[in-house]
């Protein structure tokens, strides 16, 4: 640790190219026997699956006929789901890349998410309805929850899949009970929320709006704390151990904050456009960001640590034979 500190390592983000238009959403799977995986939603209509710790491309899900606004993986990364501007949500086999189901909607679909057992899919979009599909009986009509007065941007399962959280352009976040399908609580804001992340362990909800990153108790919707960032934020993510959180937005930078003290610790330039989404990996070792510039970037939580494609090089190793095998990223001019 001491040698790393005196060396003052600079973050080298890993750029994942391949998308040709803005990356608007991304999600990690849980940790599987084959590692963990990352799916990215892109306006080019072609969501991609990548190996989570390296960013290596695994495959592209082909089939959507419009921009893909939302993408998710189930816990063991055997299924993927996507939400698109072609008025459909699709379920995919995430091992073979084959399309398994197309679920027709009446308008642009913005968000999709699986229950923990992967048996149900929750969707939401511009038709203002939340829909719950039973994937073991996809021909059956979905359950519908109405209430939002404007497009739904994000919907999540919470409280062990017994409840649903939805964020809408109507500037509210609503908590619904799944069995009664009724609204339990509503949070109203001055502006519509830009992102929402649910952390099951500890039941924490991370919300961003304006320059604010807000943390709420997901069950009671009581406010835990608010943090102000230097620029408008589009997405934030809390580290699994809840010591840090990261955020990105309109100034193209990634920010890392201390969760307890709310102090801004680090900020990184790298993207060439606004950051639309940011998420920590399930092991907390890295975080991924998706941007208007069409790329995904992977960032180390502990800069300089050997992990994935990053290699910790001690001063005595530099100039040795093995250093020639390493790739040193070119200087990025500010």
């Amino acid at each position, binding site marked *: 640790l001491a040698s790393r500190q005196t060396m003052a390592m600079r973050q080298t983000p*890993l750029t994942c190219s391949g998308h040709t238009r803005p990356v608007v959403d991304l999600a990690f799977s849980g940790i599987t026997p084959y590692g963990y995986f990352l799916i990215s939603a892109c306006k080019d209509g072609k969501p991609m699956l990548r190996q989570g710790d390296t960013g290596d491309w*695994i*495959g*592209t899900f082909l*089939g959507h006929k419009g921009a893909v606004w939302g993408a998710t993986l189930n816990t063991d990364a055997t299924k993927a789901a996507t939400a698109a501007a072609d008025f459909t949500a699709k379920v995919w086999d995430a091992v073979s890349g084959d399309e*398994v189901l197309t679920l027709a909607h009446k308008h642009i679909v913005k968000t999709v998410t699986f229950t923990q057992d992967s048996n149900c899919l929750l969707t939401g979009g511009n038709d203002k309805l939340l829909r719950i599909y039973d994937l073991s009986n996809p021909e059956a009509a979905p359950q519908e929850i109405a209430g939002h007065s404007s497009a739904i941007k994000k919907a999540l399962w919470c409280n062990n899949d017994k409840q649903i959280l939805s964020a809408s352009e109507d500037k509210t976040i609503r908590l619904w009970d799944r069995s009664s399908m009724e609204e339990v609580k509503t949070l109203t804001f001055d502006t519509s929320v830009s992102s929402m992340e649910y952390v099951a362990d500890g039941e924490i909800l991370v919300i961003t709006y304006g320059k604010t990153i807000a943390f709420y108790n997901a069950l009671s919707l009581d406010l835990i704390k608010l943090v102000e960032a230097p620029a408008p934020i589009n997405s934030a993510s809390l580290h699994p151990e809840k010591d840090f959180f990261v955020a990105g937005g309109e100034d193209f930078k990634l920010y890392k904050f201390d969760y307890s003290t709310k102090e801004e610790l680090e900020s990184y330039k790298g993207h060439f456009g606004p950051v639309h989404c940011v998420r920590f990996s399930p092991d907390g070792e890295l975080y991924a960001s998706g941007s208007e510039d069409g790329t995904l970037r992977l960032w180390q939580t502990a800069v300089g640590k050997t992990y994935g494609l990053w*290699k910790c090089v001690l001063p005595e190793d530099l100039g040795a034979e093995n250093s020639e095998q390493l790739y040193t990223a070119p200087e990025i001019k500010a």
Partner: protein
Amino acid sequence: MTTPVSVLRLPKGPDPNSRGFDPKSPRFIALCRTSIPTSAGSESDAEQLQEEQHARSVLRETFLRCLLSISNKKVQFRMHEKVKVDATFGASDIDVLNFQVSDLHTPIGVQKEALISTRGSPKPVFQTPESSDTIERIKYQKISCQNDVMLSMRLYVDGLLWRDAERG
């Protein structure tokens, strides 16, 4: 003076010629089981495996011959909600995701050239109305094992094509 963290290499990008999901990857081999039991286990009988491989290749060949035979013929697709559309069949893409057709008669007009997506369409039925005495009707039915992934196909064909397949 800061030193950038070294990396072993850059993340691998997409293959321009493929949609990926390498069937030789350990994850694919472990998780994508086939519908036919003999192939699933590594301890399968070699003779049974060979028979199965032969059967599979016959199925594949029959399917390809069907597609070739209906090329430039008038066909009818049965789509969602019992909509039937007539068209002249052109070709299929390699993944059988799209069919290229000409002169597509839809309820809202005739499309000179079109691509019909096969995904989401439960059972496309090809029927050629031209030959009145021998109607070649080709159906394919998904034989699913896991998550409705189409792993093999059984072709039901009335007329010439089926007889060809039987001879093989």
